[in-house]
């Protein structure tokens, strides 16, 4: 180390970190509130795992959205890609004649990633190299995916493949986090594979965005595209990569979704892209790009999931209450973000003015 105390100096939180801390704080407060007022399930560790189990796909597509949003883009095709992946994989599993379960499931997994990759490549190409508005491109992608899903099968398809069903029921059991049921049996905490995958995706994407040049280039791209170009970053390639990552993650989310609910139908994960956008924004990602964090988006998704759970357990159990709560939360967050950021900008301005007003003596 240089031994220079400037480097030791603790930096104030960046805007992105601050917004993330806020969302973690809100999640903690909300969860504690639920523990105190609703008790019951919220007092068990299983509740947290259930939130993860039920929302693994949402967490993954929130990461997918966060990556493109940091780069200054948007991807609203993620829900459609989940739907298409789920349907394709379900049909593939039911019609596959390969003996080995392992090979079948591996092929299904690759199919899911392949569909996501195809969407990512196509959309990335259109957005980055042909410079078409990402909103339009991914809206078209969403329609395409939904249309293809319906072409594959109008009727719901239930997975009948025994090996896959076994996989989807596989759960990691942790006994010390379990609880003792009324009949005296210890019921261990159960975690689905999908939940583990989702958490892994969050951690991996965090590392990618933090420690890979690609990740930092995506931040630069979203911060100021022109500057990024001038700084010698290949902006087209960077933008393209962000859509490819987002596409592959959508495919992965489809596979995880199928593991959680082994059945496909035309309206699977309908509108989940909107939840993912909400989760990213609540987690501190700015729609304007350049600011965001997948850890924050994870907590954003968990906040939405907790709201859903709280409303399900409360007397207000109705989907429109949940929608309204989500809407209110989103509105609240955007206001909070803008208040916090403008307060920061103001205090910064004051600081600068003071520095200029009283120049340091040399």
């Amino acid at each position, binding site marked *: *180390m*240089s031994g*220079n105390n*400037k*480097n030791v*100096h603790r*930096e*104030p939180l*960046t*805007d*992105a970190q601050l917004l993330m801390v806020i969302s973690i704080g809100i999640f903690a407060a909300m969860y504690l509130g639920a523990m105190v007022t609703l008790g019951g399930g919220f007092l068990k560790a299983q509740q947290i795992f259930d939130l993860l189990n039920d929302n693994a796909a949402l967490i993954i597509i929130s990461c997918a959205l966060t990556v493109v949003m940091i780069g200054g883009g948007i991807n609203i095709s993620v829900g459609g890609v989940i739907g298409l992946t789920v349907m394709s994989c379900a049909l593939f599993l039911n019609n596959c004649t390969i003996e080995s379960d392992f090979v079948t499931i591996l092929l299904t997994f690759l199919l899911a990633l392949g569909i996501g990759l195809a969407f990512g490549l196509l959309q990335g190409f259109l957005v980055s190299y042909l410079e078409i508005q990402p909103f339009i491109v991914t809206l078209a992608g969403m329609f395409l995916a939904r249309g293809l899903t319906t072409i594959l099968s109008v009727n719901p398809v239930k997975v009948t493949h025994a090996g896959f069903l076994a996989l989807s029921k596989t759960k990691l059991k942790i006994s010390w986090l379990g609880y003792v049921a009324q009949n005296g049996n210890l019921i261990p905490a159960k975690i689905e594979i999908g939940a583990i995958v989702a958490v892994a995706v969050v951690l991996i994407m965090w590392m990618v965005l*933090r*420690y*890979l*040049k*690609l*990740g*930092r*280039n995506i*931040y*630069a791209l*979203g*911060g*100021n595209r*022109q*500057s*990024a*170009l*001038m*700084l*010698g*970053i*290949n902006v087209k390639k960077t933008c393209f990569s962000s859509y490819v990552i987002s596409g592959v993650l959508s495919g992965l989310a489809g596979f995880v979704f199928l593991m959680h609910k082994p059945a496909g139908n035309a309206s699977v994960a309908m509108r989940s892209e909107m939840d993912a956008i909400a989760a990213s924004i609540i987690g501190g990602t700015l729609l304007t790009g*350049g*600011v965001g964090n997948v850890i924050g988006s994870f907590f954003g998704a968990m906040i939405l999931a907790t709201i859903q759970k709280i409303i399900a357990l409360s007397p207000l159990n109705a989907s429109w209450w949940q929608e309204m709560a989500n809407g209110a939360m989103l509105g609240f967050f955007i206001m909070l973000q803008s208040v916090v950021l403008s307060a920061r900008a103001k205090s*910064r301005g004051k600081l*600068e*003015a003071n*520095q*200029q*007003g*009283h*120049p340091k003596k040399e």
Partner: protein
Amino acid sequence: MESEIVLTMRGICKYFPGVRALEGVDFTLRKGTIHALMGENGAGKSTLIKVLTGVYPMDEGEIRLEGNTVSIHSPQDAQNCGISTVYQEITLCPNLTVAENMFIGRTEGRRVDWKTMDRRAGELLDSLGIPARPRQQLGSCSLAVQQMVAIARAVDTDCKVLILDEPTSSLDDKEVEMLFRLMRDLKARGVGIVFVTHFLEQVYAVSDQITVLRNGKLVGEYDVRELPQVQLVEKMIGKDLEDLSNIKKHTAPTGQNVQPLYEAEGLSSTESRPFDFHIAKGEVNGFTGLLGSGRSESVRAIFGADRVTGGKVKINGKDVHIASPHDAMKQGIGYLPEDRKRDGIIADLSVRENINLALQVMQGFFHPLSKAQMRQFADEYIAALQIKTASQDTPIKALSGGNQQKVILARWLLTHPQYLILDEPTRGIDVGTKTEIQKLVLKLSEEGMSVTFISSEIEEMLRTCSRLIVMRDRKIVGELTGDELTQANVMKTIAGGEG
């Protein structure tokens, strides 16, 4: 010159739709020299720089670097060849850290080594004396510091050619001196520096050679000692320059019976402290002070551009309430903002639309101007202000800075304001246009318009204003009129008593 030639550009041509930006321009840079690239706005300096750095492809010509022909297709190519650039507008990412901004886009491998990066950034910042911390978010630094980070980045690459495009426009004197020290240091290390600036004194302070461009053509290359300042200006303008000092200084309307046009008492906004201010009919006055002294904030408060928080305003003796730019416009106040790109032009609209914008707003959207009227107004002002544009349908972003400024000026003149506020109307503008704008201001005041003028060039203020309001630390610290208006006096007032 015996020293080795590092960069040769021969017969560079670049065409834009309707405009020949560069026609057969030659440029030669020698090792360990500072070479000033001069010319009016629209002369083609920026285009030449952008061709050299791969932002624009050139249509014809050849670039040789250390004797070898190179083809540069992107800023990355330029960087790889050892050509680094610091642009006038800061081209860094405010959402990244200072260290990242210094190293992004030019490190090997796929991974980011934060530790090494922060350490190297820290060392570099220290050695250059730049007051920034490596892990600080760049957006939290002042503009001047951001500019210096950009220079640090450029300096750190193994660079043979360093291009500084108007690097000093947002720096104060101390920072300029620091930059010059850095430039001389680099020169001693054998770097060839291309220095683009509008400040003539700065050219003579550091440069060795001068290349002058005019209207996209090469005028010539000169040794700085053989080209006196007056001749340089002549070469840039291409005609005998009407001596700047010939502009007749504005004389203030005198006597107690002069009716103030605009009076403010304790006016304050979210960005400015309460202040008193008045201007008489036909008066030209100015706010002066250092960058950040509150001069722009004060005029923004007058125009209602920031949220007004208190104070009384009278126009022609009557109480009025100005809470927004629209209110101010209804009272006949026009305001030419400091940041032309952000607050002034609508880049994608045509020159005509930009000219008619304010008048249309004044009329109200239910009384649209007819197309014929708009065309007529546009033609009138393009001719009156000698705006250089291919046509009135050209998007304003295709014009050079000085001509964009004239369009904004035309926009306000069209509304026939009784009071016009000009915040840095001549920044980043060539000498010729500067003189035109100064003359225009004086002419307008003779016709009875009141003008408040802000400029960082004190000389310019002294030439145009009959009263100067001096600000320091966001407060008015003095007012100078008549014989008190000398450069020394102004400096003393700005600096404060102890100075």
